[in-house]
């Protein structure tokens, strides 16, 4: 270390201040600089962009960008809970709230911004919050537990994010916006209208063109009074009306501040004082404040380069494209989204039934993409943004950009390979395609090492799909097979392991890892191998309990607090009154919380592990079987009542559903499988949302495949029409077996199909036309599985050794007394976790 180290003081330990420390430490190989950072908040810098995930149960320390040791290990002095109150430029010192003085050679202001709170009468009332810091969210969350409803003031990006959070907190949620549309700066009228409809479908009420005149309530807020005379009664208010740069230090010390706030900097991010830089949201550059992380990170890099004497380009401003996150509605907006460039020509695509709106604005000469809007489907965002950002020449039919996949064949030439080397893939870290390709060539050939080496995808994570595509395409070019190996213990794919298990007749995990793997296995490979062994040999999974996830190990679903749930099979949803009574009796006897599931059956919650065999003994005696709710296996085949009772029914959907559910019960697969049978086109069984769905026709059955509910719903595709029952089952046999053999772990059929080369056409060729000559083999394998089915719970109940495994303790017969329950509406629920 040299004796004349320069001392840098960073004021503000937010996202950008942190990035500055990280970059400077990395770049300063010669140890010319000593860094001291001051943060007003009590925590070290955290990921503000993903702040809302705090409501999804993310712990505070998971949000930290780096733990305190990170700073210590790099000799960066971090002082949290410390507010800098003054700068003395003549003496080059800053003064903290305790009056301590700290000397600097260079000062970097990264003070960010605070939430802008409009001067409305009553904003000081209890129950009014902003949405900016962890502390804000903590306060908000605890207050919300006594509230029923909330309003969000502001219908911009952040406001909508806050609205989703309020909704997730179980509040009746309102968004109040002053402008005539949501996200007024990013969306046009049509896009905003669709967004509004979608938000309303989520249960969020939207109030446009409302100006709040007063916040009413006696000490504590009771509602909002609008200038048009109307009144909205709510229990709390979250203000999200914009940001206010933290420029107070600069003001006091006489640095120039922009009329609308923000510390004025030049293209080198310098203030009028050559020793003071400003980066992040506190800076006003060419009259603009950048309320996003990516430009802040770029500023940090710029200043680091100047300090270490690297070549510097002037800061040119930054693209403000955004993709709305965290909310179920997909929204993207980039470049000149509203088409304000003179001569720009919009191309619009609207699909009302699917709820999709897309718009791209093309330059007057038709050569360049100026900007665009995507609502309802942002799958093309990455590509479009690249076209825009890299000034790439547009294809002859620019509408292909948003219409994409027409006529079954995928559009050519928009793939990752079409991007220029200079294309910026990760905006947060400013990583180009060339960077990434080089890193792959240098040996970073899996996603985690690529992320670690380049930092791409470590910010907002939005570019990860592209980084992944790039990695795969680059590996292909290097002649390497692109494979997703399971984990550190097996360098094989799931499919390869399946083949090995079959060919080598491997029956245990131990044998497989000894011969083809290394180490002791882990929570990733063990359950996968368990599933593979089960799909191949159909031996009772209890034989492999040590490699099963807890649900499969105890043949029940673990719940909060460590109790389990019991789900007996009720094939097709049909149940006799006698059996219903038994369920009721068992539930009452063991005090189980009872609920009808979304899958047409009954879930009994809250059983202690030692009670499971006794409960099942009683259920089995009454004719029930395991429902496999714990397994990656067939769940339910839903039915509608069908032609036996229903005046519209054209086939007996219940009988067929029961037949099918019993056929595939116990079948182990890469993920769970669900089916349904509807008795006519009205589709009351919702068959088109299932992995396989059957809808009755006058002539037989229409078969649909690869549907999905869940977080990314996808309709099943029509696979074959007017089948007789036998052919229908034959196709499902082949379809399921082919899926089991080729899908990656934890991939539902819909995702599998999306990745399957050749898509649904290929699947039809394999299953219907038998193009691979696999048909008979697939059927034979399925027949074997169907014939070797046995109820695993029956086995446990009848086998004292297996039963003994359900003891909570090895050294005593006592039950686990740590389980705690509370009453709710006449039943019990587990005490909430911390």
């Amino acid at each position, binding site marked *: 270390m040299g004796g004349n180290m320069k001392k840098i003081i960073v004021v503000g330990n937010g996202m950008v201040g942190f990035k500055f420390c990280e970059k400077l430490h990395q770049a300063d190989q010669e140890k010319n600089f000593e860094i001291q950072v001051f943060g007003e908040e009590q925590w070290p810098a955290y990921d503000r962009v993903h702040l809302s995930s705090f409501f999804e149960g993310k*712990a505070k*320390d*998971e949000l930290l960008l780096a*733990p305190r040791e990170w700073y210590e290990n790099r000799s960066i002095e971090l002082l949290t809970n410390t507010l800098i109150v003054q700068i003395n430029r003549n003496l080059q010192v800053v003064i903290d709230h305790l009056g301590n003085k700290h000397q600097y050679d260079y000062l970097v202001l990264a003070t960010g911004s605070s939430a802008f709170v409009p001067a409305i009468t009553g904003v000081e009332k209890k129950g009014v919050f902003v949405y900016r810091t962890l502390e804000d969210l903590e306060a908000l969350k605890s207050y919300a537990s006594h509230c029923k409803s909330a309003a969000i003031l502001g219908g911009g990006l952040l406001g909508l994010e806050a609205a989703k959070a309020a909704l997730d907190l179980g509040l009746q949620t309102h968004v109040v916006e002053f402008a005539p549309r949501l996200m007024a700066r990013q969306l046009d009228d049509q896009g905003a209208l669709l967004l509004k409809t979608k938000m309303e479908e989520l249960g969020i009420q939207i109030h446009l063109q409302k100006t709040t005149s007063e916040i009413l309530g006696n000490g504590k807020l009771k509602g909002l009074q609008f200038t048009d005379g109307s009144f909205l009664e709510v229990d709390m208010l979250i203000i999200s009306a914009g940001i206010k740069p933290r420029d107070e230090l600069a003001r006091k010390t006489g640095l120039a501040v922009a009329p609308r706030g923000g510390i004025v900097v030049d293209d080198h991010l310098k203030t009028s004082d050559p020793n003071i830089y400003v980066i992040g949201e506190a800076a006003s550059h060419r009259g603009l404040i950048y309320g996003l992380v990516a430009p802040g990170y770029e500023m940090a890099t710029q200043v680091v380069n100047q300090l270490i004497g690297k070549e510097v380009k002037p800061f040119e401003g930054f693209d403000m494209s955004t993709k709305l996150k965290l909310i179920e509605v997909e929204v993207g907006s980039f470049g000149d989204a509203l088409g304000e460039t003179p001569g720009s020509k919009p191309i619009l695509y609207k699909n009302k039934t699917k709820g999709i709106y897309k718009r791209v604005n093309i330059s007057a000469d038709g050569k360049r993409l100026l900007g665009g809007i995507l609502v309802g489907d942002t799958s093309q965002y990455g590509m479009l943004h690249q076209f825009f950002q890299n000034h790439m020449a547009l294809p002859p039919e620019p509408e292909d950009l948003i219409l994409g996949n027409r006529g079954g064949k995928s559009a050519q030439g928009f793939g990752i390979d079409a991007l220029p080397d200079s294309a910026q893939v990760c905006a947060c870290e400013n990583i180009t395609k060339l960077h990434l390709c080089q890193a792959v060539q240098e040996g970073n050939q899996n996603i985690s090492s690529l992320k670690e080496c380049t930092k791409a995808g470590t910010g907002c994570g939005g570019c990860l799909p592209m980084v992944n595509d790039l990695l795969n395409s680059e590996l292909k070019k290097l002649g390497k097979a692109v494979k997703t190996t399971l984990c*550190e*213990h097996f360098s094989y794919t799931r499919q390869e392991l399946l083949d090995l298990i079959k060919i080598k007749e491997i029956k245990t995990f*131990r044998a497989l890892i000894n011969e083809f793997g290394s*180490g*002791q*296995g*882990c*929570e990733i490979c*063990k*359950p996968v191998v368990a599933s593979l062994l089960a799909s191949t040999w159909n031996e009772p999974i209890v034989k492999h*309990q*040590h*490699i099963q*996830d*807890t*649900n499969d*190990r*105890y043949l029940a679903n*673990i719940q*909060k*607090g*460590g109790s389990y749930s019991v789900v007996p099979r009720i094939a097709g949803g049909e149940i006799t009154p006698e059996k219903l009574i038994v369920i009721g009796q068992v539930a009452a006897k063991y005090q189980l919380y009872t609920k009808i599931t979304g899958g047409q059956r009954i879930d009994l919650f809250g059983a202690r592990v030692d009670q499971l065999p006794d409960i099942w003994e009683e259920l089995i005696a009454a004719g029930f079987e395991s429902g496999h709710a714990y397994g990656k296996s067939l769940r339910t085949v839903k039915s509608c009542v069908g032609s036996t009772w229903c005046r519209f029914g054209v086939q007996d959907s219940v009988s067929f559903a029961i037949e099918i559910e019993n056929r595939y019960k116990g079948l182990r697969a890469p993920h769970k499988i669900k089916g349904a049978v509807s008795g006519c086109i009205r589709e009351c069984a919702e068959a088109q949302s299932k992995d396989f769905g059957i809808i009755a026709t006058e002539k037989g059955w229409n078969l649909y495949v690869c549907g999905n509910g869940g977080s990314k719903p996808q309709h099943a595709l029509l696979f074959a029409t007017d089948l007789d029952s036998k052919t229908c089952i034959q196709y499902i046999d082949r379809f399921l077996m082919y899926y089991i053999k080729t899908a990656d772990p934890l991939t539902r059929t819909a995702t599998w199909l999306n990745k399957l080369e050749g898509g649904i056409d290929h699947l039809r060729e394999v299953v219907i036309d038998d193009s691979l000559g696999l048909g008979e083999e697939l059927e034979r394998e399925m027949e074997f599985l169907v014939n070797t089915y046995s109820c695993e719970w029956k086995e446990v109940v009848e086998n004292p050794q297996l039963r003994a*495994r359900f003891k*909570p*303790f*090895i*050294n*005593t017969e*006592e039950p*686990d007394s*740590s389980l705690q329950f509370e009453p709710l509406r006449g039943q019990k629920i587990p005490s909430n*976790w*911390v």
Partner: protein
Amino acid sequence: MERETIFWFKAAPIHAFPIDSGACIKYLDQQIAVFNFSQSGEWYACQNLCPHRMQMVLARGLLGSCGEEPKVACPFHKKTFSLKDGKNLNGDDCHITTYPTKIEGEYLYIGLPFETSQSEKAENIT
């Protein structure tokens, strides 16, 4: 951590434990998870409480290794912990307490700190 004074608690005969997985031992109010690797004959013991959401479940987690480090994955959110020193291997702040083990005459013994007495609740051991 003060560990000078431990006593060896005679937990259970080794054949009572499932192979290559976990089981739980109760000592007074305390729940202790015990794991074994059948091939190498290694035995490990740690607190049964997962510090992430304070759930008494680690014994029901999957056993494995990360490089050379033996580890257990909590069944709830798959946080993984070293069975050697209790370190959280996902880089989070929460760690667990591990205890030494030994086998004598077909019995597994767990080395517990002497102060562990009836008055101490399981929650306090972190």
